[in-house]
C-alpha cells in the first residue's frame, strides 16, 4: 500500500514536472542555452578525441608500417642480424634523411631543406600509398632518378609533374604527387617531403650527422606464425645489440597520441571551466526562477504539499531537461566529425569516422548531471525557506542559496566524482588536479573578497550622496547577492582574461618576426676539410656576414650511473628526447654567452684526459641528475664515460646554437667530428643557396624564416582552436554575468518602483546601479588580472612551451573592454528594472 502510494506520488510529480517544464521552458531559456553549449563543446572534444584514438589504435600496424620496426637510427645497423630476421619474415627497408631540394630551369631557382623517404619495392607492408597519376608509384620503383613529392612541397616551390628538380647536385624528375602514406607515425606529419626508390641513396652524398639519417626496417610476420613467438624470437636475435630500438604497433604514433592527449586535455579543462561557470549561471537563473514562483510554492505548501515533493518537482524538471539537452548536444557533436575528418585527412593523412559511443554519451550526461546537481542543490534547497504564512502577510522575501552540513557533504562528494571523471586517464594528472585546485582557490578568494567588501562598506559611514548610499546598501544588505555576483563575475572575467592573454601571446608568437639575435641560416654537415672553404664561400657573397662555426659530434647516452636510462625514464618525460636517439653535442673553451651556468664549475683544466660534461639544467632536473654523476656515451661505436661538472640554463627558443650536452675541448678535440655553422647576413639577398650547393652538394641549409613559417602554421591551427573555445567560454561567462543580475531582477524592480514612488529621479536610480557595478568590478578586475597573468603564463610557457610576455597595454585594453562589455550587458539586462512601470506592478500584474 505504502509502495503504491509512493509510486503514485512519484508519477504525479513526474506528470507535473513535464507540465511545468512545458509552461516554463521560455523562462529558463538561459539554462537550456548554457547547458547545451557547454555539453556540446564537451561532446565535440570527447567525440573527436575518441575517433582519433580509435583510428590510431585500429590502424596501429599501418601507422607503424609493420608488425614491428627495427630502428638503427643513424647507422645501417647489423645487417647479419637483419638477415636472420629476414629468414622468417618479410622486411621492408626504409631510409629517411634530410637534404637540399632545389628547382631548376627557372629565372630564380629556389631551394628547401627537405625530408626524403627512400623505400624499397616491398613498401608498404600494410595500408596503401595514395598518389597521382595512376602509375607514378610503380614508375618511381622502376625508373632511376624519379621522385614523388607531397602536396605541401608542390605548393611551397610551385612544382609541376614532370618538372626537373635537384636533390643536392643530382637531377631528378618529379613524376607524381603523394596524397597520403599509411605509416605517418614515425614520419613527418606535416611539412615538405619526397618519396623515392632506395637506389637514390647510392647517387647522393650523405653524412651521418648533417643529413639526419635514419635507418628503419619494417617487419611483417607470416600469416600462419604466432606473433608472440616471432616477437620473442626477434627480441632474442637483437638482445646483445645496444644500438637497436624495437618498436611495436601499440607504441606507434605515441608522439601523435601524446599531442592529441595534451591538446584534448587542455580543451577538456577549458570545457569543464565553461561547464562549471555555466553551473553558476544555472544556479543563478534557477534561483531567480524559484523566486518568481515564490507565491506558487507558498500556495502549494498551504495546500499540503511537502517541501520535499516540491523540490523533487524541480529536480525532475532539471533531469528531463538535461537528458533532452544531452541527446541534442551529443548528436550535434557527431556532425562535427566529418568536418574534423576533412581537416585531419588533408593535414595529417588521418581519417576519422563518427560512431556512437554509449560510454561517451554516459560520461557527458554524468558530467552534466553532476554539475547541475552540485549547483542546483543550494538553489532548490532554498524552497525550504518559503513559508505558507507569507501568503497571509503578503511579504515574499527573496530566497537565498541554502547549505546545510549534509548538503555540503553531498556537494563535495559529487564534486570529487566530477573531478575524478575528468582527471582519471588524463594525459597529465598533475595539470588536471592543479587546474581544479586553481579553479576552486579562485572561487574561494573571490568569495572572501566579497565578504571583505561587505564588511568594510558596512563599517563605512559616509556621504550625503543618495545614489552612493543606495548602492552601498545594496551591496551590504542582509541576503545580499554580492558574493554570488563577485564569484560569477570574478570567475567569468578571470577565464576571459586568461584565455584572452593566451590568445594575444599566441598571436604575438605567430606574428613575431625572427628574433634580432637569431641567425638567418643554419648550416649542417660541414666536413673538417671544408670548414675554411665554407667560410670563404659565405664571405665571398656577403663580406659583412657574421659566421659562427662550432664542432659537432653525435653521441648517444647508453648509461646513467651505470644504469640503462630507458629502464626508468619514460617517454612522457619532458626531456626524453635526449635519450631517445643519438644527439648532437659540441665543445667550447668559454661558457656560451646565452647559456649561463646555474650550478657547478666550468672545465677543470687539470684533467684534460677525462671527459667532462656540461648539461642542460632542465634535462638534469627531469632526469634527477646531480653534479658528479656519470654518463656513459656511445660515440662512433666507442663507449666513453664522462662526469657531469656543471648545469647550464639553455633556452632553445632563441634560435641560436644550443646543445643539451657540451664537452671539455681538451678531451673532445680528438673525436671525429663535423661542423655546424650559423650565419647572420648584412645583405641577405646576396646569399645564393644554389651557388652554395654547387660547391657543397651535401651541405644542409636551413633558412630560419622557412622554419618559423612551419612553426607559425602549426601555431595558427592551435590558435584557431583556442580562439573558438575562448569565444564560446566568453559567451557562457557573459550569460552567467547577466544571470547574476537577473537573480536580483525582481527585487530590483520592486525596489526601484518604491524609489520611484518616493520621488527618486531616473538619474539617481541609474547612478546607484552604476556605482554598485564600479565597486564590484574594480575589486573583481584587480584579482582577475592577477589570476589571468598567472594562468596564461603557465599555459603559454609550461603547456605550449612558448614565450609569455607581460603587456600592460593589452591588459589595460582587455580590462577596459571586459569592463565596458560587462557594464553594457548589466545596463542592458537592468534596463527594464531601472524604470519600472508603476501601474502593472501596483496592480500585481
Amino acid at each position, binding site marked *: 500500500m505504502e509502495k503504491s502510494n509512493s509510486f503514485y506520488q512519484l508519477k504525479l510529480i513526474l506528470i507535473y514536472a513535464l507540465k511545468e517544464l512545458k509552461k516554463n521552458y521560455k523562462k529558463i531559456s538561459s539554462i537550456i542555452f548554457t547547458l547545451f553549449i557547454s555539453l556540446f563543446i564537451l561532446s565535440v572534444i570527447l567525440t573527436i578525441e575518441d575517433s582519433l584514438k580509435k583510428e590510431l589504435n585500429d590502424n596501429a600496424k599501418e601507422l607503424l608500417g609493420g608488425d614491428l620496426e627495427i630502428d638503427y637510427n643513424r647507422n645501417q645497423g647489423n645487417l647479419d642480424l637483419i638477415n636472420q630476421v629476414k629468414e622468417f619474415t618479410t622486411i621492408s627497408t626504409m631510409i629517411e634523411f634530410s637534404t637540399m631540394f632545389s628547382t631548376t630551369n627557372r629565372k630564380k631557382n629556389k631551394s628547401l631543406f627537405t625530408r626524403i623517404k627512400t623505400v624499397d619495392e616491398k613498401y608498404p607492408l600494410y595500408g596503401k600509398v595514395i598518389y597521382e597519376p595512376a602509375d607514378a608509384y610503380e614508375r618511381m620503383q622502376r625508373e632511376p632518378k624519379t621522385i614523388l613529392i607531397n602536396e605541401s612541397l608542390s605548393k611551397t616551390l610551385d612544382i609541376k609533374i614532370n618538372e626537373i628538380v635537384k636533390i643536392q647536385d643530382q637531377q631528378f624528375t618529379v613524376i607524381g604527387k603523394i596524397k597520403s602514406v599509411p605509416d605517418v607515425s614515425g614520419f613527418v606529419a606535416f611539412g615538405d617531403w619526397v618519396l623515392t626508390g632506395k637506389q637514390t641513396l647510392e647517387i647522393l652524398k650523405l653524412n651521418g650527422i648533417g643529413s639526419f639519417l635514419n635507418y628503419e626496417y619494417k617487419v611483417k610476420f607470416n600469416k600462419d606464425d604466432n606473433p608472440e613467438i616471432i616477437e620473442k624470437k626477434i627480441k632474442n636475435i637483437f638482445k646483445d645489440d645496444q644500438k637497436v630500438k624495437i618498436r611495436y604497433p601499440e607504441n606507434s604514433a605515441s608522439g601523435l597520441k601524446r599531442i592529441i592527449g595534451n591538446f584534448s586535455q587542455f580543451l577538456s579543462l577549458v570545457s569543464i571551466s565553461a561547464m562549471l561557470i555555466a553551473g553558476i549561471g544555472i544556479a543563478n537563473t534557477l534561483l531567480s526562477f524559484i523566486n518568481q514562483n515564490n507565491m506558487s510554492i507558498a500556495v502549494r505548501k498551504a495546500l499540503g504539499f511537502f517541501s520535499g515533493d516540491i523540490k523533487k518537482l524541480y529536480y525532475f524538471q532539471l533531469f528531463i531537461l538535461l537528458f533532452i539537452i544531452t541527446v541534442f548536444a551529443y548528436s550535434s557533436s557527431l556532425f562535427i566529425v566529418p568536418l574534423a575528418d576533412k581537416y585531419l585527412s588533408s593535414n595529417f593523412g588521418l581519417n576519422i569516422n563518427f560512431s556512437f559511443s554509449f560510454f561517451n554519451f554516459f560520461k557527458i550526461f554524468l558530467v552534466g548531471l553532476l554539475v547541475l546537481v552540485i549547483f542546483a542543490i543550494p538553489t532548490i534547497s532554498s524552497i525550504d525557506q518559503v513559508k505558507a504564512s507569507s501568503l497571509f502577510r503578503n511579504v515574499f522575501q*527573496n530566497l537565498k542559496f541554502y547549505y546545510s552540513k549534509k548538503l555540503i557533504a553531498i556537494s563535495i562528494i559529487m564534486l570529487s566524482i566530477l573531478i575524478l571523471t575528468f582527471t582519471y586517464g588524463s594525459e597529465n594528472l598533475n595539470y588536471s588536479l592543479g587546474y581544479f585546485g586553481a579553479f576552486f582557490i579562485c572561487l574561494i578568494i573571490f568569495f572572501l573578497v566579497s565578504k571583505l567588501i561587505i564588511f568594510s562598506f558596512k563599517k563605512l559611514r559616509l556621504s550625503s550622496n*543618495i545614489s552612493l548610499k543606495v548602492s552601498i546598501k545594496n551591496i551590504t544588505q542582509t541576503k545580499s547577492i554580492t558574493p554570488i555576483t563577485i564569484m560569477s563575475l570574478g570567475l567569468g572575467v578571470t577565464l576571459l582574461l586568461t584565455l584572452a592573454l593566451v590568445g594575444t601571446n599566441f598571436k604575438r608568437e605567430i606574428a613575431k618576426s625572427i628574433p634580432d639575435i637569431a641567425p638567418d641560416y643554419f648550416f649542417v654537415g660541414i666536413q673538417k676539410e671544408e670548414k675554411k672553404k665554407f667560410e670563404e664561400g659565405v664571405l665571398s657573397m656577403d663580406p659583412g656576414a657574421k659566421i659562427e662555426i662550432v664542432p659537432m659530434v653525435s653521441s648517444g647516452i647508453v648509461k646513467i650511473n651505470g644504469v640503462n636510462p630507458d629502464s626508468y625514464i619514460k617517454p612522457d618525460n619532458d626531456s626524453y628526447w635526449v635519450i631517445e636517439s643519438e644527439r648532437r653535442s659540441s665543445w667550447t673553451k668559454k661558457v656560451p654567452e646565452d647559456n649561463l651556468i646555474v650550478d657547478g664549475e666550468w672545465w677543470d683544466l687539470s684533467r684534460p684526459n677525462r671527459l667532462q660534461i656540461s648539461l642542460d639544467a632542465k634535462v638534469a632536473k627531469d632526469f634527477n641528475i646531480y653534479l658528479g654523476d656519470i654518463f656513459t656515451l656511445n660515440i662512433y661505436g666507442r663507449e666513453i664515460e664522462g662526469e657531469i661538472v656543471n648545469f647550464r640554463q639553455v633556452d632553445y627558443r632563441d634560435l641560436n646554437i644550443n646543445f643539451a650536452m657540451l664537452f671539455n675541448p681538451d678531451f673532445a678535440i680528438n673525436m671525429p667530428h663535423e661542423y655546424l655553422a650559423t650565419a647572420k647576413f648584412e645583405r641577405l639577398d646576396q646569399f645564393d643557396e644554389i651557388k652554395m650547393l654547387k660547391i657543397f652538394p651535401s651541405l644542409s641549409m636551413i633558412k630560419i624564416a622557412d622554419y618559423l613559417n612551419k612553426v607559425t602554421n602549426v601555431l595558427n591551427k592551435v590558435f584557431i582552436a583556442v580562439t573558438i573555445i575562448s569565444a564560446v567560454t566568453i559567451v557562457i561567462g557573459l550569460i552567467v554575468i547577466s544571470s547574476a543580475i537577473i537573480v536580483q531582477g525582481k527585487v530590483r524592480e520592486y525596489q526601484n518602483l518604491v524609489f*520611484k514612488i518616493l*520621488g527618486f529621479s531616473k538619474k539617481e536610480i541609474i547612478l546607484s546601479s552604476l556605482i554598485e557595478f564600479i565597486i564590484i568590478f574594480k575589486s573583481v578586475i584587480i584579482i582577475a588580472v592577477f589570476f589571468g597573468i598567472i594562468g596564461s603564463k603557465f599555459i603559454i610557457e609550461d603547456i605550449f612551451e612558448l614565450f609569455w610576455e607581460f603587456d600592460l597595454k593589452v591588459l589595460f585594453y582587455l580590462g577596459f573592454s571586459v569592463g565596458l562589455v560587462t557594464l553594457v550587458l548589466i545596463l542592458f539586462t537592468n534596463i527594464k528594472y531601472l524604470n519600472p512601470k508603476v*501601474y502593472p506592478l501596483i496592480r500585481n500584474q
Partner: protein
Amino acid sequence: MVSRQIIIILIIKLLFMSTLLKLKKVNLKYQTGKDNISVLKNINLTTKKKETISIVGESGSGKTSLIMLIGGLERPTSGKIFFQDEEITKLTEDEVSKIRKKNIGIIFQSFYLIPNYTALENVALILELNKFKNSEKQAKSLLDRFGLKHRFNNLPSQLSGGEQQRVAIARAIAMKPELILADEPTGNLDTENSNMISKILFRYVKEEGSSLIMVTHDLKLANRSTRKIKIKDGKIK
C-alpha cells in the same frame, strides 16, 4: 444662530483656502491586447489645502487609477492636472519625481516597504533623498511616535501588518508633505489596527495641516473626511 455662524465661517474659510490640486477633463485609457479600456472618463476635480477627501466606489471603478494620476505615477491619456498651480502633466518624469519627493506622501494597501531595508532604513531613505541632516534621528523619532521604538532594526517580514503600515505612514509623512495619498490604507488590516491607523492619519493631518486624499471601502473611515467623492465606471458621481 451659532450653527449659521459656523457655516458662514466655514464658507469664508473654504473661499480663502487656496487650491492644492486641480484636474481638468482628465481621461485615462489602457490598451489590453486589441481592446481599449477607458478607466477614467472626463474627471474634473478641485481640492483645497488642508482638505480631507475620501474616494469611494466599487472595485474596478478607477479609484486607484485616480490616485496614481494625482501622485504623478501615471500620465493621463488626455486632460490636465495642476498641483499647486503647476501643470504636472506637462512636466518630465524627473520633474514630477522632484515634486513628489517633497510634497506628496503615498500610502498603499500593500505597504510597499523595501523588503531588505529595516523599518528605520525605510523611513530614513526619504529623508536622505531630500538631503536631511540627522535623517536617522528624525526617522527614529517618527517611528517612536508611532509606537515602533522596539522595531527599528526589524525587516518588514518581521513586522505585523499593522506595524508595516505604521512604518509606511511614517515614511509617507516624514517630509511633512502638502498632500497625502492613501490607497485603502486599512484594507489589509484587522479592526483594531484599522482604527489605530485611521486615528494616526487623521491626527497627523489635523496637526500638520496636510491634505489627505484617501481611497477606501470603509464607510466609517470615509465619513471622517470633509468631502466624499464617489466614482462609478470611471466617472465622478
